């Protein structure tokens, strides 16, 4: 079947099997391998992308067909004009990653989180990131990174 999905501002028109999962569509049909797959049960969050501006969704538990006509933002679309997004900068500054496998999903969940709660407490960050597993960092520094990004974004709301 034909699908037309705007990913990071670029329209992709592809012919796919209905069973094509959005995660594989992004990785294999669009060549955007930043979105990872770490489980088969919608548990780990490695695959999280943002749909229609502010909704974090697990791309492994959605068919590409369901995203037809929608806009998807992946980790590759975060940096603008060569400048890192404040979340990316913050994960780097705060050592919010080690192996990097969970990182794209963490960034995208955090992105949607900050759209809904621009100034979350540490507790709220921990709650909102609980759909994303990280095996390496122990989360301390991820929480710090999201806080830093929230502060940066609040100080300069133009850089979204």
């Amino acid at each position: 079947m034909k699908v037309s999905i705007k990913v990071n501002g670029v329209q992709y028109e592809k012919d796919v099997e209905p069973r094509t999962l959005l995660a594989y569509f992004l990785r294999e049909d669009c060549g955007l391998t930043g979105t990872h797959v770490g489980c088969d049960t919608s548990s780990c969050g490695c695959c999280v992308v943002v749909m229609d501006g502010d909704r974090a969704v697990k791309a492994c538990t959605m068919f590409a067909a369901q995203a037809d006509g929608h806009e998807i933002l992946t980790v590759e679309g975060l940096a603008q004009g060569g400048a890192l997004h404040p979340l990316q900068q913050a994960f780097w500054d705060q050592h919010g990653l080690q192996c990097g496998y969970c990182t794209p999903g963490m960034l995208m969940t955090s992105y949607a989180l900050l759209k809904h709660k621009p100034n979350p407490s540490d507790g709220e960050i921990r709650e909102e990131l609980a759909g994303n597993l990280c095996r390496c960092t122990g989360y301390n520094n991820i929480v710090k990174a999201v806080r830093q990004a929230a502060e940066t974004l609040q100080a300069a709301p133009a850089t979204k």
Partner: protein
Amino acid sequence: MSTDTTIKGSLGVPMKRKEDPRFIQGKGNYVDDLSFPGMLYMALVRSPYPHAEIAGIDISEAMKVPGVVAVITGKDLEAAGLGWLPTFHGLDKQMVLAIGKVLFQYQEVAAVFAESRGAAADGAEAVQVDYNPLPVVADPFTSKKDEVLLRPDREAKTNHIYHWEVGDRDRTDQALQASEKRIRQRMWFPRCHPAPLEPCGCVAQFDKMGRLHFHVTSQAPHVYRTAVSLVTGIPEDKIHVISPDIGGGFGNKVPVYPGYVCAIVGALKIGRPVKWIESRTENLTSTGFARDYHMDVEIGAKADGTVTALKVSTTADHGAFDAAADPSKYPAGMFGIVTGSYTFPTAHAEVDAFFTNKAPGGIAYRCSFRVTEASFAIERGMDILADELGMDPVELRRKNFVKKEQFPFPSVLGFTYDSGDYHKTLEVALEKIGYQALLKEQAEKRAKGELMGIGISTFTEVVGAGPSKHFDILGIKMFDSAEIRIHPTGSGIVRTGAKSQGQGHETTWAQIVAEELGLDPQNILVEEGDTDTAPYGLGTYASRSTPTAGAALAMAARRVRERARKIAAHLLEVGEGDVEWKDYKFQVKGVPAKSVTMKEVAFAAYTNMGQNEPGLEATQYYDPPNMTFPHGAYIAVVDVDRDTGEVKVRRFLAVDDCGTIINPMIVEGQVHGGLTEGFAIAFMQEIQYDKDGNNLNTNFTDYLVPTSLETPHWETAHTVTPSPHHPIGAKGVGESPNVGSPAAFVNAVVDALSPLGVRHIEMPVTRDKVWRAIRDAEAKKGQS
């Protein structure tokens, strides 16, 4: 000459990681990101039975599935002489695809190659296998009876794999007999799995000249190259192993798995690249598990708490094949570290390993070969002894610690601990957590019937395998290596035989080299994982990178510096003996104004080297003279809910001593990560089998990885006791927190329940177990 004074030290600096820009932008390069023209996907057919005869395999329906290109079975591999794969420590071999029978649930039975992931899955589903179920042996104690022989293929007609022991049995037994106080406890360190977020996988590709390019999630790419050559008979020069970015390893990506061999065979047979990426279920059910040690721990002591003897007898469950990744001469790894941080006058440890109908493994999961099991045994045992003695566990530890002045300390079980200051580390921890205040609070809470616990663990680890006279894998000695090339403009490239999986080698290696050579770490490129370019090394696991490859690197850098000194002498127009390395540059002795920087020397090495050999590079292989012995003092504070059995870890402090710290930010991150895995092991993470041999934790809905919400906030601190034999004094840290923390958590829970008379609780400490322990203890109290 030079006035450049900008170069500052690079060691001990919390430098931001050089690898991060690619990861935060989705530009990492993991194995599943690779794609080649004509690439096929492989899917494996796996056994639903834990033990069964294979009466027949019918692939005809599978071959009809659109997109399926080929199917191979064990018979095909056996015919090609590829039926079996040697396990790493050389005591056993493992079936690639089942031959005649299956020995564990989810064992690999057939491989299907197809044009797409979907077609491969459809094909695997269509392969029909006829099984005749056989009696199942699901635990080592049943296995011990030898009523069902699991491995008739082996010469020895028994399920017993090996007996290993160390120490003086008779003396220890006597000392235990004679001891004034004595405790004995069975402890089971349950089976668990490293479960890195990126599953294992590979892409096998033969180029037009028939050379194999094998992209694989490997923590030890060189060992893979040798192993693949030994298994397939492909000459080693025709094999190129590339380990790209790895999404976490923790020991899981050390062994060579059957799927890899199948992918290579498929690529060779079909003449197209083959990708195989395991599913989470395949990861959890068939690749290297860890632990599964049933330990009987006995400690003897004088009435004043001085320990007199330690004895640990272990029954180990190794699963269907003995694929434990231990060094050849150490089938039970470094279990001899079980005397821990204490001066036992005598000790004895033994391990008996058995086959069962469970997945093979026994890998070093974020630990140096069975050190986690050993640390748990001793740290839990010391708390039980403290309870028996009615002594504060802190006091008991202080009393028996190896003292600072006793290092290098020869332990009764044969290790020589390099350095440490156990008393100091513990004092720092007690002070920082406010131990006295906590004790007071606990007493108040206990008076009100509330359950609060404080748990301590003061472990000693042994890492950095290891000296060649003792350690090898598949016969290959466990050295490591490094190569440095400095370019004319003062930047450089560094390669080692290690392989980062998140530890940040691209940063820390650059820091070591920059420190030794007075260069800018930002311009030192670190490349690992490519066997065509990197020098031979044994890889990254068992916290060995810093102790081995890191040491090799520092020494290689010093070699570069010696060569540079000659060129500096030429530039400074003095004799080599008149040149000294000071403040990160070469200067004429006593004449600081006359100096050259390494950058200037590098340029001269290619443009104006005088009589000296051109170029500026060095290679160093490093055979460590000893292991390193990081240690730490960990304290957990928990509150237990009587009604639900819920345990809340209110605080956790880790004070680590890992010797010289290369990058404190990275060290802290490693500690956070290791603690989180230790927390998971203590409270939720377990691979269970039912009595029929069915794996019950086959994906993340039941194999529980803690989220940000359950995970405690970690507090950390450090003491620094450098390793005397390591060139920069570093010891390695990646695994200490995982080794040391489980006992702290369990000790805290047991401490909370101790007023009720609870003395031990098995991991994982689930709410159900805690609740039942409370209920049973209360019932017992009611009776008495």
